[in-house]
């Protein structure tokens, strides 16, 4: 297994109070998989993602990537945030070059690599613009280009399209799906939008709160490409996920549809 989470738990200590945010998380992820973490607000999706990305460690259990315990962020696993995390004082081009700067590359190679990924996300005409001149959707494309430019193995995304309107959102969903397959990336994608999860994921990890835990894992057996948001199969899976959220005290089972 590529990513191996075993008995992971996290407790925040706030003064004297202890808050159990993640409890007994077990999850294995294959290379190249597209995983969606789905659940209501406060169920610990971001906490789990941050722990996998190395920003904020778990307090129990272990998270291993490629056999190595996660201890700190790495250029091999890039995170894309909901508010994009672009540096407003840099142009699009310079933002995308950021992750290439610590690498031993010539100026020209760096510029060329950045340009290639800016083109991939369809922003060639804006490479000299500053982020504040771009729409939210375009800014998120820049963040995606910046992540891809360092050729990471894993891309972590925390509600990356949460601030976008429905149409821009669907367009970006199409694009991220195509790009992740083309570039053969493993993607861990946090969302609380059920349809987004079904449209994107190979497997949906459904989480529940208090404490944050995995409620169930849904295998999405739909064609990789051209998933129809209105097809019968799609709606069937959606019903299944609704059911998971509505049912009380369901045992942890792996649904296979």
């Amino acid at each position, binding site marked *: 297994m590529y990513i191996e989470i075993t008995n992971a738990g996290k407790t925040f200590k706030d003064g004297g109070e202890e808050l159990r945010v993640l409890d007994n998380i077990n999850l294995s992820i294959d290379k190249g998989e597209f995983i969606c973490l789905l659940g209501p607000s406060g169920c610990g999706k971001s906490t789990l993602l941050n722990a996998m*990305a190395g*920003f904020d460690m778990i307090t129990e259990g272990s998270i291993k990537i490629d056999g190595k315990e996660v201890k*700190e*962020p*790495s*250029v091999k*696993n*890039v*995170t894309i*945030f909901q*508010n994009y*995390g672009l*540096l*407003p*004082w*840099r*142009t699009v081009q310079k933002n995308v070059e*950021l*992750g290439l*700067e*610590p690498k031993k590359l010539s100026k020209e190679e760096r510029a060329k690599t950045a340009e290639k990924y800016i083109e991939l996300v369809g922003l060639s005409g804006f490479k000299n613009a*500053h*982020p*504040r*001149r771009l729409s939210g959707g375009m800014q998120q494309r820049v963040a995606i280009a910046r992540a891809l430019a*360092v050729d990471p193995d894993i891309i972590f995304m925390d509600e990356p399209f949460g601030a976008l309107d429905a149409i821009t959102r669907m367009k970006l969903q199409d694009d991220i799906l195509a790009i992740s397959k083309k570039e053969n990336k493993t993607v861990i994608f946090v969302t609380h939008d059920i349809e987004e999860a079904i449209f994107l994921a190979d497997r949906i990890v459904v989480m529940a709160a208090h404490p944050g835990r995995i409620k169930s894992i849904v295998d999405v057996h739909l064609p990789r490409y051209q998933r129809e948001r209105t097809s019968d199969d799609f709606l069937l899976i959606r019903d299944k996920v609704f059911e998971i959220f509505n049912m009380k005290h369901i045992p942890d089972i792996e649904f296979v549809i």
Partner: protein
Amino acid sequence: MKKLLSLKNIIVSFAIFILIWQVLYMTSDFGDALFPSPLKAWQALVEMVENGYIFINIGTSMYRFAAGYISSVITAVLLGLVLGWFKGIFKYINPVVQLLRPISPMAWMPFIVLWFGIGDVPAIVIIFIAAFFPVLLSTVSAVGNIDPIYLKVAKNFGIKKPEIFWKIVFPAAFPQIANSIHLALGTAWVFLVAGEMVGSQSGLGYLIIDARNNLRADTLLAAIIVIGLIGLILDSLLKLIEGYVMRLWGGADK
């Protein structure tokens, strides 16, 4: 860039100012020796321009101001970036800074003159002190206020010390730092004159003392107005530079 001072506003404002001055002159009974008219002050200014006296003193003052202000701002910003980053160290330095900060730079004057004598150094040191603390403290707080997401991104992409200082920390903190550099300019200019009045035999501040000693109220007023004008020009220049950097870095259009 929005013009804060349009030409029309400037002309009207100065005309009213001179008018009030003239009215006060005519209604008061101080006499020319104590309270010169606008015309007298103008003539004194023309006299100083013609014999070149004013330019020599402006040059001297500008040199001191540039030396004191620029060295102070650079030191304060560099130190502020480091101390803002290493908060643990700053905790031990802050109490002393808070103790020194409220002391008027002029209070150090006796020591400064004793140590360095009369001349360029006292004014430079006074300006340095005047600009230093506001810029230092504001830089420290600007670093503390940086959006954590920039630091997360830097960490994720492997940007390490010391690059992180000029790639992330400084530009992210820049708007707040620029603000304090701007405010410090005014403070420093105020203390330049004070410093020169006590610690030098030349410069705009000394011009005031010299005029007083020669009982030349008209020269005195002319010097005061020149000091105000240069302060205004310096302020506008800095605003231009600030606006340029902000636009270069894609910040707010000011």
